[in-house]
C-alpha cells in the first residue's frame, strides 16, 4: 500500500462542553489512496465535518483530538507542532468549505487572498505569486482571470466564488484535498459543473480527494469509495457502486431509501423513524439501535467493523446480506 496518501486510525475528537463530553468523532478509521475519491456521507451532526477539520488540526475549542493517528507521508499529523502543521495546511493538504459566500474574506481582494496563500509556503516574489494565482483561476474555468483577480469576493457569483476557493486549494498541487460539502450551497446546474471540474482536476493531477457531504446523489457520481458516518462512527465503508446498490448497514439502507428515485416513482418515500441521538446520551452498543428496524438483543453490545463482503465493511450484527430490491 505504498500509494496510500492518508491513513486515519481510530481518530477520536471530543468536545468538552459544560453539558458534558461530546464524542463528535469516536474511533474513525479510513485510508485514501492516490487518485481515489472517498465520499464521507452522513446527516448533520454525524461528525463528518469534524473528521475533515481534525485532519488539518483546525478543530476549534472546546473540541480537541483525544486519540488516534492520522498518518500522512510517514508522519502522524496529530503529533506535529502547530508550526509543522501549518506547513502541511494548504501545501500538501488543502481544504474547501461549504459556503463560498463565507470562505473568502469579504474585505480583501481575491488577488490578496491568493497571493498570500502562495507565499505562505513558497518564497516567491509577489509578481510570480500573482502569475501563479492567475494561472490557477484560469485552470478552474474563470473567464478573463487577469481582470477578475483584483475583484472583491462579492463581485463574483456563488459558483465563481467556489471556483476561486478551489483554485486556492489547487495552488500548491496538494496530495489531498478535503472538500466539506463544497456544492451544498450552490444550485444544481452549478453543482454539476463544479463536480465535473473537480473530477477532471482530480484525474489529471492524481491527487486524492475526501468529499464530505450529506447528498448521496453527489457522491454517487463522484466517489470511488463511500464511508457512511453515524453518531461519530463510520458504520459502513466500501466501494461506491457496491455501497449504493447493496448496502449492508440498515442505516445506509434507510439513507438510500429516503432519496427520491426514478425507479420507485409513485411509491411513498421511505424515511428513517426517530431522530439522530444526542451525542451526550448515546444508546449503548450500536447508536442506531433505537431507530433500527432490524435491531436484535445483541445490538446492545459494542459493534466492531466487520468485513462482510469483498472490500465492504459494516458495523452491524444483523446486516442486509440478502439481495435488496432497493436500488439507488
Amino acid at each position, binding site marked *: 500500500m505504498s500509494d496510500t496518501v492518508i491513513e486515519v486510525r481510530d481518530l477520536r475528537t471530543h468536545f468538552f462542553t459544560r453539558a458534558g463530553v461530546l464524542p463528535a468523532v469516536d474511533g474513525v478509521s479510513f485510508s485514501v489512496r492516490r487518485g481515489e475519491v472517498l465520499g464521507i456521507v452522513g446527516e448533520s451532526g454525524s461528525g463528518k465535518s469534524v473528521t475533515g477539520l481534525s485532519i488539518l488540526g*483546525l478543530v476549534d475549542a472546546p473540541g480537541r483530538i483525544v486519540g488516534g493517528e492520522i498518518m500522512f507521508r510517514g508522519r502522524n499529523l496529530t503529533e506535529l507542532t502547530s508550526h509543522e502543521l501549518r506547513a502541511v495546511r494548504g501545501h500538501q493538504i488543502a481544504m474547501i468549505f461549504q459556503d463560498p459566500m463565507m*470562505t473568502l*474574506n469579504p474585505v480583501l481582494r481575491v488577488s490578496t487572498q491568493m497571493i498570500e496563500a502562495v507565499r*505562505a509556503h513558497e518564497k516567491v516574489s509577489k509578481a510570480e505569486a500573482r502569475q501563479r494565482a492567475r494561472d490557477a483561476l484560469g485552470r478552474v474555468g474563470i473567464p478573463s482571470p487577469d481582470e477578475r483577480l483584483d475583484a472583491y469576493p462579492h463581485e463574483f457569483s456563488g459558483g465563481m466564488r467556489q471556483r476561486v476557493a478551489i483554485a486556492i486549494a489547487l495552488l500548491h498541487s496538494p496530495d489531498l484535498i478535503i472538500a466539506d460539502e463544497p456544492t451544498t450551497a450552490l444550485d444544481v446546474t452549478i453543482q454539476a459543473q463544479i463536480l465535473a471540474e473537480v473530477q477532471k482536476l482530480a484525474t489529471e493531477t492524481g491527487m486524492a480527494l475526501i468529499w464530505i457531504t450529506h447528498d448521496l446523489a453527489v457522491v454517487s457520481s463522484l466517489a470511488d469509495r463511500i464511508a457512511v458516518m453515524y453518531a461519530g462512527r463510520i458504520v459502513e465503508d466500501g466501494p461506491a457502486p457496491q455501497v449504493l446498490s447493496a448496502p449492508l448497514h440498515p442505516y445506509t439502507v434507510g439513507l438510500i431509501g429516503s432519496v427520491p428515485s426514478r425507479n420507485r416513482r409513485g411509491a411513498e418515500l421511505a424515511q428513517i423513524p426517530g431522530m439522530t441521538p444526542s451525542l451526550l446520551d448515546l444508546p449503548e452498543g450500536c447508536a442506531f439501535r433505537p431507530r433500527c428496524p432490524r435491531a436484535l438483543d445483541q445490538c446492545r453490545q459494542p459493534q466492531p467493523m466487520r468485513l462482510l463482503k469483498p472490500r465492504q465493511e459494516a458495523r452491524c450484527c444483523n446486516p442486509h446480506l440478502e439481495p435488496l430490491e432497493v436500488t439507488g
Partner: protein
Amino acid sequence: MLVYFLRRLGQSLIAIIVMAILVFIGVYAIGNPVDILINPEATQREIDATMQRLGLDRPLWEQFFIYFGNLLQGDFGRSFVYGQPAMEIILQRLPATLELAFVALVIAIVFGIPLGVIAGLKPDTVLGKSIMGGSILGFSLPNFWQGLMLILIFAVLLGWLPAGGRGPTTEVLGIRVSFLTWEGLRHLILPAVNLALFKMALVIRLARAGTREVLLLDYVKFARAKGLSERRVITVHVLKNIMIPVVTVLGLELGSMIAFAVVTETVFSWPGMGKLLIDSINLLDRPVIVGYVMLTVFIFVFINLTVDLVYSGLDPRVRAGMRNE
C-alpha cells in the same frame, strides 16, 4: 441623491435653529451676569449703565431677536469678560482641544484595538478577563476621578509628569501644538490618557466582540487551512473586518471628545475650549457660552450629516432606502 442631501441639510438647519432658541433661553435662565461682572460696591446707576451697554435691560424677546439676527450674520457678540468677539476667543482655544482629542483618539486606538483583540482571542484566560475587567473600570469610574487619580499617581507620588497646564508650544502652520517638544508632550500625556480611557474601554469592547464573531466565520478557518501564519490571520483577516464597526463608532465619538473635553480640561487646567466654557459659566459670560454651545451643535450636526452621506456611499442598502423615500 440630491433630494436626500437637501432634505438632510434642511433637517440639520432646523436642528441648529431649535438649539439656538433653547441655548438662548437656557443661558438667560442662569442668572444676571452683571451681578458677577461688576464691582460689588458699584452704585445702582453704574449697574444700570452696564446693563444698558450690554443690552440686558431690554425684554427677553427683543434680546433674542438681536441675538438671532447677529447669529445669522455669524456674529456671536463680544465676550463680557474679555471684550473680544466670542467666537474669536473660542477658536483661539480650539487647537488645544483638537490636539488633546486627536492624541486621545490615537491612544484609544493604539491600545484599545490590540487589547480588545487579545481579549477576543483568549476570552477564558486570566489576561482576557483582566482586560475586560479593566474596561469595565474605564467605563464606570467617573472621568474626573480617573483624572485626579492619574495626577495623584504620576504627578504627585511618582513625580514623572506635570500635573497640569499645557507647557511650551511650537507653532506649525500658524497653529500652536505641544506634541513636538518633549516638555510639551509630557504635559499632554496625562490629560490625553484621561480623555482616552473611556473611549479605549469602548474600543476594547467593540474589538473583542468583533474578534469573537469573526473568529467563528468560515473565512478565518479557510485562511488557516491555506496554511497562513496565525499572525497573518489575526492582523489581516480578522483585524480588517473588525475595523468597520470600530471606525464607525470612533468617528462619531470624535465629536464628543472635542465637545466634551470639559471635565478633563478642567482637571488638568488644559487651556482648551472646555476649560473656557467652565470659566465662562462661572463668570456668566453669555456670548462665550452661547458661542461654544452653538459651535458644538454645529460640529455634531456636521459630523452626523457627513456620516449619513458616507454611509449612503458605502452601503448600497442605504442608497436603495433613499430612493424609496
